[in-house]
């Protein structure tokens, strides 16, 4: 059985259908580079889904999910996941570790990691180099690092272990079907939307004050 069939859906879509082509606003995505990538896929008529699946990659002794990973894109016609990493090196190392873990646990899954240099080369190729500073690194980020990491905090400070199935048999990399949990839904808001929300919150606080 394909392990993905048991996995919870991510916030990007639960129907399994590709996102229809259309205008792409940066605020639909966690990072401006992802919006640009979606526009490139649209342009070349490649079907895609944004963060359609969440893959548990770390469990505690009780089988509770401690850490999960939601690749940015799934290209259903090509059966490949794509993860963009245009952030700083520290986070790239984290992503590399997660992708390595994902490949170990789900060996049939195809995932392509697009590094900052790959994205930069793409932009260069398409004559979009001038936009690189806007689309790369922290300046293109819509969510904070904590929001985008998708890490579950260990409950009760338990030690972090491999999924039981993986440790015991060395064959079944997927934890019991009941143990993976969907990670909290991510909220995709642009920076301006977050500023507006902040202003509303500040205003509400001011009105509520005696």
């Amino acid at each position, binding site marked *: 059985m394909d392990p993905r069939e048991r996995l919870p859906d991510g916030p990007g879509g639960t129907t399994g259908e590709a996102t229809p082509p259309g205008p792409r606003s*940066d605020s639909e995505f966690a990072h401006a580079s992802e919006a640009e990538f979606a526009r490139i896929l649209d342009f070349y008529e490649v079907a895609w889904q944004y963060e359609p699946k969440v893959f548990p990659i770390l469990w505690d002794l009780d089988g509770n999910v401690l850490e999960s990973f939601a690749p940015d894109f799934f290209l259903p016609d090509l059966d*490949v996941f794509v993860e963009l990493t245009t952030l700083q090196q520290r986070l790239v190392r984290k992503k590399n570790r997660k992708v390595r873990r994902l490949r170990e646990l789900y060996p049939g899954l195809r995932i392509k990691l697009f590094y900052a240099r*790959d994205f930069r080369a793409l932009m260069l190729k*398409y004559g979009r180099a001038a936009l690189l500073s806007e689309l790369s690194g922290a300046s293109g980020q819509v969510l904070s690092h904590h929001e985008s990491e998708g890490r579950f905090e260990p409950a009760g400070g338990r030690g972090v272990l491999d999924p039981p199935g993986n440790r015991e048999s060395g064959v079944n990399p997927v934890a019991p079907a009941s143990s993976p949990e969907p990670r909290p839904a991510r909220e995709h808001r642009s920076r301006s939307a977050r500023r507006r929300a902040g202003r509303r919150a500040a205003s509400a606080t001011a009105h509520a004050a005696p």
Partner: protein
Amino acid sequence: MKPPQNLVADVAEVLLTEEQLEAKVAELGERITADYAGRELTLVSVLKGSLPFMADLMRHISLPLRIDLMEVSSYGGTSTESSGLVRILKDLSAPIEGRDVLLVEDIIDTGLTLNYLLRYLNGKNPRSIKVCALLDKPARRLVEIPLDYVGFQIPDAFVVGYGLDFGEVYRNLRFVGVLRPEVYES
């Protein structure tokens, strides 16, 4: 962008010499001739980058063949307000239904353009369709498409010459070279 005055000076390193290119194109031509022996071939060149390659390659193929040209728009960024789709800027000038087609490409990078073209051309019901690429840059491949004939696998570098451009310049270099980063970073 100010046009460069000395094209060669902007190249950091010659990746493939004129002699290496000539030898490889001849070798590819011989292979294609052998593989398609007794058949009539249609070479389809994807403009503009594959033009020099196609011109050289066809002269090393000893078969009755037709040539045709296609051009598709390249992604240039689209406004967040409107969607953009790839467009056929120049379509085939003759039908390819029932014919053996060899798509001639200069370089395969992400595979997005090739993927689109193959889907488009397959819709025209050719007898067969294969791909001949001078350069294969697998590092950034998104769409895995089997390449039937490959000249050279190259590293992940920005290359120009022998049809490949930067800002429409450098196509006329006789070799394939790596462009100096300061040229495209400026």
